[in-house]
């Protein structure tokens, strides 16, 4: 290997010596990245458990389960879940998954660990700030979990927390659950803002010599753009949360209009607007969708190229598409509010912009297929998950073309069609991105190999399973099944159109898919402790900088020898070369100079 390296003294924090500075209050981006991943892993299993309860309630609304009575004496007296317990589970499922899983692992987890190494830096720009980001996020998770245990239990107003339902205790069973929810979200926003700063500065200022922006791996591009989205979006949600908390606790009326009568009780708030919350929430909420999915898109591009042994098809187009998605992501929030009563004129503008955002998404999809085309595909587990990602992204994205048109959205809004859409695109597609990232970087991060066979079994069950769960939900939407219904019995047309059979099928599919996730958990933990040890710096024959350094990387990533970059990120199968890949740091003459 003809690696060109320069000796630089860069590392500003000394090697940690105690357990606490090494593993708990660590300032090392790699440890912090793993901390984020573990938090997301725990949160994902909690969130998944809640979804199982939701699925059980939908299929057996009146069946008593002894186990449920033991576990939840309040939420499931006599073993039957109450409607409010159902709504609480659904609210917490959404909140945990969106914030604690989809926002933490792809960015805070993989981004934190990999980005500094891929840009050739010894750490993030602000290591202490990085530590603060994680621990603020951790506190946020604790506050959210506490909501289960306070009087009144977890909130029931959905992950979108629309006021007045979320603002008035008179409209729900009350208690402190909603307050803790807001506190948790506010803390989460602060943690994410700090993290976003770090990602942006690190990408702009700590790139090694020769690593121009157009030589950045697409993973770095997506983490970078995601950070910009986070920086602009989380501040808005933080403010909205502060206002909502004041409406609840300080008697203000930002979101509560005058003249309300709840359960025959006159509410003495006046002058606010529930629509204001929706604007603020979705101004954050839509970019949030891309915060969740963009890193998955980056990982997918990266892995498709690596395992097809081909350059990314249309690298430049991919970069522009990422930027376009990031930019447009801020001007489409109104499509969540087509039924809020907004003027048809503004809805038309939001609709056009929404359809325009489909264009860069289509560009990415066709470029992914173009990357595979003519390759020599190695079907290792990271590649399987990435191929799965592309399929799920297409399926989840295409239903957006229905929902982006107000004419059709007026029928589908708040039905299971929407549930199917966002679960596929921002839920399971993003999670497939995490699976592929985890299986891809596991040897690098932990110096051990995951069990490939178990990963493959997990892939097959999960890929078929998520389609079996979320595919039929489209049909529930077509028969006009409103979402967030604790049971189907009180609407006649649902049973008549076959909703119960579809629900039954979905619940069984969910049980099988959830069971398969324990395979992954087992593989993860077992491989961490007993997996085959490897010190191979580059087991996948990949090209980017994380594969130059030792496995696992040293405390300062490159042991002071920061590599210089001479090549683009995806120089695979370059003609006239002995090997089928050229690493970014290989000598300049390893491949013809060909910046993208």
């Amino acid at each position, binding site marked *: 290997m003809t690696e060109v390296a320069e000796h630089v003294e860069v590392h500003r924090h000394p090697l940690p010596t105690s357990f606490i500075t090494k593993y708990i209050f660590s300032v090392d981006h790699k440890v912090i990245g793993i901390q984020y991943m573990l938090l997301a892993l725990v949160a994902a299993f909690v969130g998944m458990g809640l979804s199982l309860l939701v699925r059980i309630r939908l299929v057996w609304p009146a069946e008593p389960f002894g186990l449920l009575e033991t576990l939840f004496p309040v939420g499931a007296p006599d073993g039957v879940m109450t*409607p409010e317990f159902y*709504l609480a589970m659904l609210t917490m499922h959404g909140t945990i998954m969106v914030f604690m899983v989809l926002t933490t692992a792809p960015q805070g987890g993989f981004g934190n660990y990999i980005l500094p190494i891929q840009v050739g830096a010894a750490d993030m720009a602000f290591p202490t700030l990085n530590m603060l980001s994680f621990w603020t996020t951790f506190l946020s998770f604790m506050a959210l979990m506490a909501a289960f245990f306070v009087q009144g239990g977890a909130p*029931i*107003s959905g992950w979108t927390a*629309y006021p*007045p*339902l979320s603002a008035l205790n008179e*409209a729900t069973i009350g208690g402190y659950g909603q307050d803790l929810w807001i506190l948790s979200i506010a803390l989460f926003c602060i943690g994410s803002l700090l993290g976003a700063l770090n990602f942006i500065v690190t990408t702009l200022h700590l790139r090694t010599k020769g690593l121009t922006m157009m030589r950045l791996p697409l993973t770095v591009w997506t983490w970078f753009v995601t950070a910009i989205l986070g920086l602009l979006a989380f501040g808005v949600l933080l403010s909205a949360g502060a206002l909502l908390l004041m409406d609840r606790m300080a008697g203000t009326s930002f979101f509560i*209009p005058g*003249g*309300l*009568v*709840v359960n025959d009780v*006159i509410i003495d708030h006046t002058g606010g*607007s529930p629509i204001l919350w929706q604007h603020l929430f979705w101004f954050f909420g839509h970019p949030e969708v891309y915060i969740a999915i963009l890193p998955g898109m980056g990982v997918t591009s990266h892995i498709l190229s690596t395992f*097809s*042994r*081909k350059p990314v098809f*249309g690298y430049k187009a991919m970069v522009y598409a990422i930027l376009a998605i990031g930019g447009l992501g801020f001007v489409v929030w109104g499509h969540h509010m087509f*039924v*809020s*009563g907004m003027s*048809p004129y503004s809805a038309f503008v939001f609709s*056009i912009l929404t*359809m325009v955002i489909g264009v860069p998404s*289509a560009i990415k999809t066709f470029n992914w*297929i*173009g990357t*595979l085309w*003519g*390759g*020599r*595909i190695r*079907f290792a587990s990271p590649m399987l998950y990435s*191929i799965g990602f592309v*399929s799920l992204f*297409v*399926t989840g994205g295409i239903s957006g073309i*229905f929902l*982006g*048109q*107000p*004419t*059709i959205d*007026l*029928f589908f809004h*708040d039905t299971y069609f929407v549930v199917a859409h966002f679960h596929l695109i921002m839920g399971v597609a993003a999670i497939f991105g995490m699976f592929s990232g985890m299986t891809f970087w596991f040897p690098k991060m932990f110096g051990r190999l995951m069990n490939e066979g178990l990963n493959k079994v997990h892939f097959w069950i999960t890929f078929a399973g998520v*389609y079996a769960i979320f*595919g039929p939900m*489209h*049909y529930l939407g*077509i*028969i*006009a099944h409103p979402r967030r219904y604790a*049971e189907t019995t*009180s609407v006649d047309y649902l049973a008549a*159109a076959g909703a119960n059979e579809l629900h039954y099928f979905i619940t069984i599919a969910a049980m099988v898919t959830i069971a398969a996730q324990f395979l992954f958990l087992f593989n993860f933990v077992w491989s961490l402790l007993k997996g085959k040890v490897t010190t191979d710096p580059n087991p996948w024959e990949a090209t980017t900088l994380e594969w130059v350094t030792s496995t696992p990387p040293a405390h300062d990533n490159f042991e002071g020898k920061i590599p210089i970059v001479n090549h683009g990120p995806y120089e695979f*199968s370059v*003609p006239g070369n002995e090997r089928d890949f050229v690493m970014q740091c290989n000598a300049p003459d390893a491949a013809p100079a*060909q910046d993208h």
Partner: protein
Amino acid sequence: MAFLLGLLIWFIAIALAVPFVTQWWPLPDTITEHARQVDAQYNLTVWVTGVIFLIAQLALGYAVFKFGSNRPGRASHVRGNDRWELLWTTAATVLFIGLTFMGYTVWAEARFTEAATARPADDRLIVEVVGQQFVWNMRYAGRDGKFGPTDIKLMDDSIGNALGVDRDHADGKDDIIVPRMAVPVNREVELMLKSKDVLHNFFVPELRIKLDTVPGITGTLRFKADKTGTYEIVCSELCGLGHYKMRSFLDVMEPDAYEKWLVDQESFLE
């Protein structure tokens, strides 16, 4: 592996697309011209997106089983192709934006004001719809065509005045408040959507329209049903514990049946 994965992707794509195209789970009936236009737009979208969906998924599946690592030689060193980029960018732009423009007038019809749609308003029936946890209240102005004033201090579910109508006022005397909605067939209906407490959403699948009832704001929905029958009104915005059972009915009646219904309701007022 490659063969199986490609096959699975093809199978999933077709299994998902077939029920859409053949309408195994059909959309609910339509009872307005508007609803039929929505369905036409929906069907057009099914075809356009269906073709894109199948092209993408089938190409993905094909690439997976065609380009495995067991084939001889090296991967081709192709870095992209500007012509193809231009092709799919243009195609996506034209199709997606074209769809939006085609569907635009359909949606505006239900939501725009009288003046913008130029539909005759002389004989339209105005019904006030007020959501509250977890029931619907429908108010008709009565013979005088005027809604009486309301006061939140008069609101009392237990004496049947959930809306706080001032019964002493001349306009309020003959206001009819009922838990389900009756409308005559083939007559323009304009709904004034309101809420007493939290967000609700007025949704009748057969009308293909829904709108939030937002406290503090009056929303407008218009429809003209052309088929008699009873249809369910369901709440489509999370409103609390009883959200799933917040339901009412829309009765579309022949004009004379509607008149009789109206007379019956008036008799209850006395």
